[in-house]
């Protein structure tokens, strides 16, 4: 996306050697996507800003050992996702850190809503209320599906980079992505179905 084109000339070697000006350029190139990922995962600006700052502080500490097996952005996303998950878990002490993969990866989500809302006009689909319904549905995705969905469909990472960032296999990413997309589709179908019913009864 937009950011990828601005980063091509950043020198990993300079970053590893502690070049502060180069680090400042890295921060400017990638702070926006990291901030918006945090905002999506945590739902509030203060926590997103904490994740942003902690991500780059951690990157600064660990840059000398960055091996470059993934891109810098993928590496930053990995740090940011971990920071955000730690923040989420601080708020929910009952969540077991090892228990995030408990859902059956082989179980497909079966569609139950067959409302044909895809042909609704764009301004209706992207109304303020429609966007809120979408944001709400994304916010309510289970954590292990949400992280995959955010990196792949919102931050626009490839399947491979998403897998690298989350330490998953590519096939795990694909399964989780499909489940996330189908869950969102289900929620939006319910929402737009209700809207279509109301319009019919009013008109």
């Amino acid at each position, binding site marked *: 996306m937009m950011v990828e084109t601005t980063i091509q000339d950043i020198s990993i070697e300079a970053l590893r050697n502690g070049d502060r000006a180069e680090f400042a350029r890295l*921060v400017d190139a990638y*702070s926006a996507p990291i901030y918006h990922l945090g905002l999506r995962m945590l739902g509030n600006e203060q926590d997103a800003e904490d994740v942003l700052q902690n991500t780059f502080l951690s990157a600064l500490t660990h840059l000398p050992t960055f091996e470059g097996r993934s891109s810098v952005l993928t590496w930053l996303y990995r740090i940011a996702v971990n920071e955000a998950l730690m923040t989420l878990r601080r708020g929910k002490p009952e969540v077991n850190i090892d228990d995030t993969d408990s859902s059956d990866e082989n179980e497909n989500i079966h569609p139950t809503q067959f409302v044909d809302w895809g042909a609704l006009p764009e301004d209706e689909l992207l109304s303020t209320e429609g966007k809120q319904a979408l944001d709400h549905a994304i916010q309510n995705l289970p954590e292990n599906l949400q992280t995959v969905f955010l990196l792949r*469909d919102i931050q626009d990472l490839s399947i491979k980079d998403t897998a690298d960032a989350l330490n998953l296999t590519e096939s795990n990413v694909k399964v989780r992505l499909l489940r996330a997309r189908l869950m969102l589709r289900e929620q939006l179908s319910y929402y737009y179905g209700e809207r279509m019913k109301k319009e019919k009864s009013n008109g």
Partner: protein
Amino acid sequence: MAESTHNTCEGLLGSLSDYIDGELGAELCRQIEKHIAECEDCRIVVDTTRKTIDLVHASNAPQTGLPDDVRDRLFKRLNLDKYLKPSAK
């Protein structure tokens, strides 16, 4: 039901993401298209899933910037104050 073929509802569901992302081979696409021409429910699932992803992209597009105050505090926290030039927005 043969799950490995793409001319069934179950088979289509398993390949839905690859199909929408344009990562499925021509023969499998053809099987899916044949199926959705005959199965209205699957046609709706394909269309509305694709639309869901389109909406995600469209509604997320304006959120690419970083608020100036957030950027200022980030640079200060990282002791990068002297590189704090105006953002190139």
